[in-house]
Every structure is written in C-alpha cells, then in structure tokens.
C-alpha cells in the first residue's frame, strides 16, 4: 500500500538514469552486438571484412583444439568449484565451531578475496617453481618429480590450486554469514540428538545453506571460466602443449596473438551463451530454494 515512489518527474528520472544507460549501451550492449556481427565475418586486424555467414562457427565446431579447450575449461571449472567449496565449507565450519579467536581466524582466511590474481599467480610461480621453488624440495622429497613447466597434468594442478587459493576468501565470506544464520535452536537440537562434528555440518548446516551454496557454485563457475586468466597467463601461458589452455585464454590468443577477430568473436559469442546459461540456472535455482531464506 505504502509507496516509496515519491517523485514523478520523468525528466529528472531520465537524467538520473542516463549515465548508466549510456555507458551500458555504448560499452556493453553495442560491443556485444558488434561481436555477434563480427562473428559472421572473416575479420583480421588491419584487413577488410568479408561476410562468411556461419563459417567461423563451423570452424569452432570442427576444431579439435577448441573442443579440447572447452572440455578442459569444464574440467578445470569442476575441479576449482569442488575444491573451493569443499575447503571453504570445512574452514567455515571450523571457524563457526570455535569461540576464541573467531575474528582473527576469519580475517586470516578471507583476505585472499583482496588478492590480485596476478600477484597470486606470481607467488605460486615462485614457491612451486620447478628449480627454485621453496616447496619443490619438500614435494620432491616424497617422490614427486616437480616438472610442471613440461608436465601438462602437473601444470593443470598448479593453476587449479592457485585459483582455488584465491577464491577461498570470497566463499568463506558468504558461507560464514549463511552458517551464522542457521538458528541456534537447530544446532542445540542436533547436539541433544547427538549429531556431532562433520555429521552436523553435512546433515544440518549444508541443507539449510543450500541457497548460498548454489549461489557460490555459479559464482565460482563463472570465476573459473573467466577470472582465472591471469593465473594461466602468468603461470603457464596455456601450456605445456595446451594443457591449461582454457577458453578465456584461448580466446585471448585468437584475438591478440593471431588477430583472427572473426573467429575470436564467434568464441566470444559462445562464452556469452555460456554465461547466459549459468546465470539462468542460478536464477532458477535461487527461485526454487528461496523459501529457505524466508
């Protein structure tokens, strides 16, 4: 009944919205439209465009390199999402359980939220460097030959670890809020019923935190697909032999190493559809579970 809409000047509201709309149209919508358009052209830097219809998409469909990059990205995202959620959830649970030093523990695990990926990448490059790394000695002592500059799977693991490390902070921030929202009476009921330790986490907290966890799964997936560029670029440059060549890095190379703007645009459009699907899933899932939050 009551309303917040206390002003009604159309001119004023138009002026207030103008900057956001202008920037959105010029720098967000227009480039996206441009990408869609360019994806139908054979367009290279400094050359005229030639309309090629769906040829660029056909190229993507038939390029085994792109297929493996797509599969690699999905595998990478899966590893990162599962890793981040598992580690963060356990950390959050431990912090939730202690009384003393909670604030200090919290800040010492959420700080990677502020960590620039480029810094994270370089630090990892340094501590896990195959010849110089401080961790290399101890790891080799247990019988693993640290050789990720040439060993694909090892490179994949290093990039994934760095990516997981950086994302823990963000996840714990949301998880601790969700876990603190679990009514105390539920915790106490669980205690009375003898549901202790990890079982309480899995059978009491996790179900109640479901909306937050879904939100984080989507956010982490988007993160793994797009925001891990700096890790790949600085740690492995997509190598060795494309073992870490995830979609976003592949797209960057297509555009700025090979200057195939047509194909690169088609790849952008594919990424756009990917984000779209992820966001759509998030909205649907959040909707479905929203009653938990009420």
């Amino acid at each position, binding site marked *: 009944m009551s309303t*917040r*809409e*206390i*002003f*009604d000047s159309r001119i*004023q509201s138009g*002026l207030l*919205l103008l900057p*956001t*709309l*202008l*920037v*959105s149209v010029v720098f*967000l*919508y*227009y*480039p*996206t439209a*441009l*990408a869609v358009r*360019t994806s139908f052209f054979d367009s290279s830097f400094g050359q005229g465009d030639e309309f090629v219809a769906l040829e660029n998409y056909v190229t993507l469909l038939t390029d085994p390199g792109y297929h493996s990059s797509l599969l690699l990205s999905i595998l990478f995202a899966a590893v990162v999402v599962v890793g981040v959620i598992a*580690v963060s959830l*356990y950390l959050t649970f*431990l912090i939730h*359980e*202690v009384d003393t030093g909670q604030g200090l523990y919290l*800040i*010492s*695990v959420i*700080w990677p939220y*502020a*960590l*620039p*990926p*480029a*810094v994270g990448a*370089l*630090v990892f490059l*340094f*501590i896990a460097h195959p010849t*110089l790394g*401080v961790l290399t*000695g101890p790891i080799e002592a247990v019988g693993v030959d640290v050789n990720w500059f040439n060993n694909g799977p090892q490179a994949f693991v290093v990039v994934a670890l760095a990516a997981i*490390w950086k994302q823990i902070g963000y996840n714990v*921030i949301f998880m601790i809020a969700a876990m603190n929202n679990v009514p105390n009476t539920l915790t106490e009921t669980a205690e*009375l*019923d*003898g549901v*202790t330790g990890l079982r309480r986490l899995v059978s009491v907290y996790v179900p109640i935190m479901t909306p937050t966890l879904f*939100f984080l799964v989507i956010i982490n997936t988007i993160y793994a697909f797009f925001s891990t*560029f*700096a890790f790949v670029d*600085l740690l492995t440059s997509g190598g060795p032999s494309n073992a870490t060549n995830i979609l*976003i890095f592949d797209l960057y190379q297509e*555009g700025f190493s090979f200057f195939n*703007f047509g194909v690169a*645009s088609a790849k*952008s459009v594919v990424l*756009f559809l990917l*984000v779209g699907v992820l966001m759509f899933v998030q909205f649907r899932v959040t909707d479905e579970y929203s009653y938990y939050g009420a």
Partner: protein
Amino acid sequence: MGELLQYAKRRADSLRGDNVTKTTYDAKPGTHLQLWLLVFAVVFPIAVAVIVSTKQTGVVTSLGDLLPGSYAVENYREALVDYQFGRFMWNSLAMSVVIVVGKLVVSVFAAMAIVYYRVPYKDLVFLFILFTLLLPVPVRFIPLFQLMNDLGWSNTILAITVPYIASATTVFILRQHFLSIPTSIVETAKLDGVGPLRFMLFVLIPMSKGVLVGVSIIMFVYAWNQYLWPLIIIDSEANQVAQVGLQLLQGDVQGGQLSWSLVMAGSTLTLLPPLLLMIVFRKPLLETFSIQQK
C-alpha cells in the same frame, strides 16, 4: 530404519538424563589445531613473498632459507623507482578511484530513479541494467578493443575506466538497500516537501553510508585487480597498471635481468592497497555482501 531406532534410543537416553552427550566442546583443541594448519596453508604463499621481498637474491630453495633478509628498503626502492612500480601503482590507483567514484555517483543516480520515481517502464529499465551482468569484460573485450581504437581512447585512462562505470551489481545492491529504508521515512520527506536533491544528499546518502563504503571496497578490489583488459588496451609502460606491471617484471626475471626478490616486492606492493582497505573496512564490506546475495 536402523537410524531411526538409534535416534529413538538416543532420545530416550537424553530424556532419562543419564547419557547426555557433551558435543562440540570436546572437539575444541583439535578444531584449533586444524584451523592453525589451514590458516598456515592460506597465509604461507604470501608470507613467503613478503619474506623474499626483504632478501638480496630471492633464491630460496629450502624451507631453511625462509628467514627475513635485510634488503627490504633497497628492494622496494628499486622496484618503485628503477622499475617504475611507483608509476604503475599510481596508474592503478587513478584507475580504481575513477571507477569507484564514477560507479558510485552513476549508480546512486540510477538506483534513486528506480526506487523513488513513479515513471513508466521502470522495471524494464532495471532489467535492461541487470542484463549487463551477462556481458562481463571477457565476453566483449575483442569488440571493445576495436571500439576503443575507433574512439582513439586506446592507451588512455578513459579506456580502462569508462567501460566499467555502468554497474549492474552496484545498482542492484543500492536498490536493495534503498528498499530496506522504512517507507514512513520516505513519506515523511514527501509530506515535508523535501525535493529530490535534498532527499538524495541529506536523507538517502547519509542513510546508506555503510553500504556505500562496502560497495566502494568491492568495486575498488574489482578495479584494482583487473588484469586482462589493461593488458590488452594499454601498451605504453608509462600508462600501465600494477597488475600488468608485475607481468613486465616477471618477463625481466625470465630474461635473467632481475632477481625474484624484486618481483616479490612488487607483488607485495600490489597486494597492499586492496588488502588494507578490506581489513580496515571489513565490517561494512561483509554487511554489503549479505545484501548482494539476495
């Protein structure tokens, strides 16, 4: 079935009072130990970086080498002055501040129009802004690069700030916050005939201080940590930002002209601004995050 029986038995036990299990508190010492180990793992890489930044060479091949050196002043001076890191930091700061201030102003305007004006198609406009969440930089950097060339903005601060000014996230968070301001306060303003400008400056903004600070931190961290877009669009060292500056330093290391201790000094410098802001303003930051998820 078995579980149910166990449950019933425990229930009966606890009712009789002879076997009331004392739960969480027994686990505390172990919990602290686990937390210590995990916190150590999360902090270790960056601790190494800080320690190495104080050493002469940065050759740390065993854990025994992890003692602080005495070259801190020398290293940081060299990074800041000789390797232009002061310049990079300054560029990053300018970029981040322009983005934060721009986003805040423009988003407060937009959110105010969306919440407090009774105008047609408002919901549509809001959707139009929200839809830009589907268009992150990685999806459109190829056409954006072309657009910047056309505008002649390449290699300028305009290129790395203006495209970020429209922010669906910020508008969304502010809108959620505005919707939580009691209607009666808004209506009081209406009854008193408080105009839009006065309302914004003296009611809305003071009542949104916490959220505005929180959003600013989120946006600062986001802007400061941008890597891919500056890498593409800025090609002169004089205009480069810290994240890409790190990549330049790393290149020199690979070329053998530079010691790792300088790279770690640069990494530490790059981490400091977002980290300090996050630690100082963690309270409004965490509160703002809790709005974002809704």
